[in-house]
């Protein structure tokens, strides 16, 4: 038990140092724009298809399943706004972040882990190249900026899925459906949900990079780093979501 607790404290301390180093390195010249854009492209490409499919299905299924209940109360006309609100405030950000945690955090963990094991990170260091700046800063920034973009994309795809689901039994034009959605959306529905996605992205990148960068020697550690990155990043998504819900409730 003591050893377990000690390990938790050591890990927390290392993680904090790793995070602080990110902010120190972030403001040091020169920024690796090429690597950053390459990482942004990789994050987008790796997850776009999955997010399209899951986003569409989320909207479609929510509409189909909510319809009978709303019909009972004669509130079928609320369906577009209800589905879109659920998607924008909660479901699309969390599902997108979980997909990114699975695809991106594990990818970063495995890539950096294998670079560590095969001494590629050491090779950068002895070549006077700052591996933290080149590998870690660019990846964390890429996930921080790309996850919110992917969430917005998932929102639109989900709402479109909702439109298709609505038209299975009902009839409404796409323009009217989106008008219904936008009519009931408020500033407070969008902003807190949007802000939390930056934190999702930041922690996905941070945890993936931390696990990979600190992989111990041996090929088995690459798998362990990838696995731990997925578990920790997914857990962090739920914790951030809970904190965001509490803070939104408190301040708005």
């Amino acid at each position, binding site marked *: 038990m003591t050893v377990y607790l000690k390990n938790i404290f050591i890990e927390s301390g290392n993680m904090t140092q790793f995070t602080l180093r990110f902010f120190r390195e972030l403001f040091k010249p020169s920024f690796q724009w090429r690597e950053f854009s390459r990482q942004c492209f990789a994050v987008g490409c790796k997850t776009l298809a999955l997010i399209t499919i899951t986003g569409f299905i989320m909207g479609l299924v929510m509409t189909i399943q909510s319809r009978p209940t709303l019909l009972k109360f004669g509130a079928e006309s609320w369906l577009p706004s209800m589905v879109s609100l659920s998607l924008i405030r909660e479901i699309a950000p969390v599902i997108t972040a979980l997909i990114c945690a699975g695809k991106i955090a594990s990818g970063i963990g495995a890539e950096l882990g*294998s670079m560590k094991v*095969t001494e*590629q990170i050491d*090779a950068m*260091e*002895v*070549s*006077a*190249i*700052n591996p933290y700046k080149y590998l870690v800063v660019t990846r964390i920034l890429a996930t921080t900026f790309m996850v919110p973009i992917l969430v917005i994309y998932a929102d639109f795809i989900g709402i479109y899925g909702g439109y298709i689901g609505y038209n299975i039994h009902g009839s409404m034009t796409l323009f009217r459906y989106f008008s219904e959605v936008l009519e009931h959306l408020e500033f407070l529905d969008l902003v807190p949900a949007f802000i939390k996605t930056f934190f999702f992205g930041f922690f996905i990148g941070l945890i993936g990079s931390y696990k990979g960068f600190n992989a111990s020697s041996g090929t088995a550690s690459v798998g362990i780093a990838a696995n731990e990155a997925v578990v920790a990043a997914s857990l962090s998504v739920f914790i951030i979501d809970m904190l965001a819900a509490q803070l939104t409730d408190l301040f708005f």
Partner: protein
Amino acid sequence: MEAQPIIAIKNLYKSFGENKILKGISLTVNKGEDLVILGRSGSGKSVTIKCLVGLLGSDKGKIEIFGTEITKLKDDELNKIRARIGFMFQNGALYDSMSVRQNLTFTLKHHIRNLTEEAIKTEIMEALESVGLEEAIDKMPSELSGGMKKRIALARAIIIKPEIILYDEPTSGLDTITSREISELILSVQKKYKTSSIIITHDMACAKMTGNRILILKDGLINAEGTYDSLEKSKDEWVRSFFI
């Protein structure tokens, strides 16, 4: 006139937890000298050169490179020293997401800013020519054999025109013929670029061919020192066992 040491290690200690790897080793490498370090696995050979470039911190002792004590240098200052040192890793450590050209360009661009594309191309071709692998320029590391990877790793080390090159087991995992080719390559690089070097190896043929002087590590200490011929005739049976 006394030879000028380009590397000087004084009483270096390094341990990992309870495991004491280096127990106070001292050595010097003079300008233009090629020092071979021999020793059994786990004797601290690789740890020594990793401490030299700051990949591992030492517990105690001094390391001077180009007359500068490096153990307490900040990252930026240490990088200025590192920029004058080439390092060839045991398995090459080529960046596997980059082609050979990109591996060399990446290293070169970080050392010398504002190089024109033409100048980069010339430098890359010169480095590849030195290791005899011009045709591999657009290959990925996964497409290269073990020997080719080591040659490209050497090209990456020499592209920055280092004054010192550290070789971590340059011939390990290679067949006899390829090992000899790599040893000959090291020798030609030493002559062409007039580098000083430390070569960590188990390969006695490589040690004989590439080193002016040999150190043998045993249990974290220097057990024997001398030329290949003098150590081969050593009275110490343990030392002679390396030469059988």
